[in-house]
């Protein structure tokens, strides 16, 4: 992820080719209609030529014939035009729906550290703003680009047959203008990418504001955050202004492309016609067809600019797609009669190169045992829990869960055997019942009710006017900390795994809530292998074994009484808490 791949515009097309692949048949029909439509348009030029010459020669019979033919061709053109737009709409809507689904799946497969290294606002910006820009490009600009190229090729071929001299003279300045516009579009792309990066940063500020609104209000941080937002918005504005300036500088080239070919064609054509080298009919047909060359050429440059501009957005989406996903491979988890529930061998892990979060950790945890992990803040307790859940994989050493090396089995199958309850419980903005049901999708209402009872949640849920149907609000804002934790425990009960990891679930609770959650935890841990991280010794005391971590290393292990007698780090931590309680 650190090495961001750079894409050329063609490279980007190649990267997104997979979106078009399933719709080959639609693209084929579209291509057929486009070619037919091009043929119809060119035929109009041929008819104009004959119509004008017949008019000058006063050949009334031929005029009527040509007029009928012209009407038929116009109808055919309208039908083909409708078909093309419909078919292309079908393609763009389907491929973009696939793309959104793909991106959504991809996001879910990203490893946890990806979300640590990138701001969620930036990820959201790539997912929504940038992919919308891409959708606009695919849905509109790309279609016209393809049609324009086809038209230019077909019309220019027919015009060359009529008079190659006139064609060359008419469009002799176009390649120069095209080159210059394309050259400037590279700068547009640069500023477009910079603009989108700034918009991404501004969206990060938006995300911080919305997420931290309580903090912002209580600490009066409005001005600071508004200033941050202004700064990022103004940075984006600077890039937009540069982009606008470059687009404005392109204007003379656009005029060259749109107006000059027509003027040169009619001037030189009139000259040739006065010298009787071409008929007036041919000149008018030429003028008619020139519209199919010079106008698409003029718009083509605009579209090249749009392409380069969209490329900035598409590149950001491509970067998101290139972020390395979590490992999807591995064997399925099969129940083994392993002696130990968890085996940790020489486990080393670091977030940053020089600082070891976990260092040479060895532990064997028997089935049904309750293990407490203690240590000062930042000693690696929560990291250990994340490593056991398979959330990080770039560690050294080995972790075995129920006899399986977690690097060799599929991550989702390992996670099916582990329940995790964290300090910062996330509840989805759904009903309480739905939140509990996330533990097991096929759970019945009775199962949910039973899980809520075990987790000490039933009593407060039934007091609510809508019971299990009560909506908890975003992140469960309508519930207290203790209520949220009990719902999280109910979710874990419903999941019914043999291993449960509890990462300080009572740390942010008041004494009354802590007692209720503690009681629930004791019931949840019964007959399960449990690893519990807690800072309150009332929770730790009854563990079968206590692991004491210090700066990522395992420094002491034993029961509460053994560790107290040893008078080491555990003893110090214990004494400190007793003193705090006394104060």
């Amino acid at each position: 992820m650190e090495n961001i791949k750079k894409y050329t515009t063609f490279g980007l097309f190649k990267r997104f080719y997979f979106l078009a692949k399933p719709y080959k048949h639609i693209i084929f029909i579209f291509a057929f209609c486009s070619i037919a439509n091009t043929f119809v348009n060119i035929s109009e030029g041929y008819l104009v030529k004959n119509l004008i010459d017949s008019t000058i020669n006063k050949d009334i019979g031929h005029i009527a014939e040509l007029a009928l033919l012209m009407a038929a061709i116009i109808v055919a053109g309208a039908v083909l035009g409708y078909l093309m737009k419909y078919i292309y709409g079908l393609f763009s809507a389907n491929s973009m729906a696939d793309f959104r689904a793909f991106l959504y799946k991809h996001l879910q497969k990203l490893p946890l550290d990806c979300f640590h290294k990138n701001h969620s606002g930036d990820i959201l910006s790539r997912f929504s703003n940038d992919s919308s820009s891409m959708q606009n490009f695919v849905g509109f600009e790309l279609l016209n680009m393809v049609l324009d190229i086809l038209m230019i090729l077909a019309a220019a071929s027919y015009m060359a047959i009529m008079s190659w001299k006139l064609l060359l003279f008419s469009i002799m300045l176009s390649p120069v203008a095209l080159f210059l516009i394309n050259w400037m579009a590279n700068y547009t792309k640069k500023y477009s990418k910079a603009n989108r990066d700034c918009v991404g940063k501004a969206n990060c500020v938006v995300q911080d504001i919305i997420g931290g609104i309580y903090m912002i209000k209580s600490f009066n941080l409005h001005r600071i955050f508004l200033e941050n937002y202004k700064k990022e918005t103004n940075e984006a504005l600077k890039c937009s202004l540069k982009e606008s300036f470059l687009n404005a500088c392109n204007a003379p080239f656009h005029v060259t492309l749109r107006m000059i070919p027509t003027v040169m064609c009619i001037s030189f054509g009139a000259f040739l016609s006065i010298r009787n080298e071409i008929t007036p009919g041919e000149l008018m047909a030429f003028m008619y067809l020139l519209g199919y060359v010079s106008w698409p050429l003029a718009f083509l440059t605009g579209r090249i600019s749009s392409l380069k501009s969209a490329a900035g957005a598409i590149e950001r989406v491509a970067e998101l797609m290139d972020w390395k996903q979590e490992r999807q491979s591995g064997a399925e988890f099969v129940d083994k009669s392993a002696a130990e529930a968890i085996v940790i061998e020489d486990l080393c892990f670091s977030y940053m190169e020089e600082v070891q979060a976990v260092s040479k950790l060895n532990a064997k945890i028997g089935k049904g045992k309750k293990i407490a992990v203690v240590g000062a803040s930042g000693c690696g307790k929560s990291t250990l829990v994340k490593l056991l859940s398979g959330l990080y994989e770039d560690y050294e050493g080995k972790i075995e869960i129920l006899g399986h090396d977690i690097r060799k089995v599929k991550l989702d199958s390992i996670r099916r055997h582990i329940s995790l309850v964290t300090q910062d419980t996330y509840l989805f903005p759904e009903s309480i019942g739905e939140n509990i049901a996330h533990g097991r999708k096929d759970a019945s209402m009775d199962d949910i009710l039973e899980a809520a009872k075990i987790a000490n949640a039933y009593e407060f849920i039934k007091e609510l006017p809508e019971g299990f149907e009560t909506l908890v609000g975003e992140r469960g804002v309508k519930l207290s900390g203790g209520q949220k934790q009990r719902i999280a425990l109910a979710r874990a009960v419903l999941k019914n795994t043999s291993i449960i990891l509890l990462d300080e679930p009572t740390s942010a609770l008041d004494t009354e809530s802590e007692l209720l959650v503690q009681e629930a935890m004791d019931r949840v841990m019964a007959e399960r292998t449990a690893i519990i991280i807690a800072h309150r010794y009332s929770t730790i005391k009854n563990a079968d074994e206590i692991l004491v971590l210090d700066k990522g290393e395992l420094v002491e292990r034993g029961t509460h009484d053994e560790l107290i007698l040893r008078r080491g780090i555990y003893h110090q931590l214990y004494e400190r808490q007793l003193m705090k309680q006394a104060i």
Partner: protein
Amino acid sequence: MFEKLGLKTLFKLLRGIGAHKLSYYTGLFGFSIVEASIVILIPIIIKIMMDAVLNKDMAILRQGIALAVLEAVIASSLFIVLIYLFWSAVNRIAADIKIKMMHRVLNLTVAYFEKQHSGDIISRITNDINNLYGAATLDSPSSIFTPFKTCALSYVNSTSLISII
């Protein structure tokens, strides 16, 4: 009735143009007029040239060429200024609206954030403002003169054809 037509929203949007009124309207109307003049002048030039063809007159041909060159030079120069005026105003308006909106968001009650999903609020500040940006550009500044151009073009085309016949 205004509400039904969405005109109230449009007026609200136009009020948001605020300090950038001059550059926005100069860019919008100026660009449209120049754009329309090109579309009208080209058929006129074609008509002059066809007259030269039918009358085999080189002097008329030269007149037509001079008119075309003059129009190209004037239009090119004006376009640079007008397009920049228009787009820079649109970008500034969008930035102003974003900042104003953020100011409003920061002053909303906590109850609002509890009722609304953060994704919805974020979407209003990011995606919906982009849609507003699209509305401010009216797709393309020239679009407001499209009906006028079409009428003028039809007239010039018909007279041009009549002169040939």
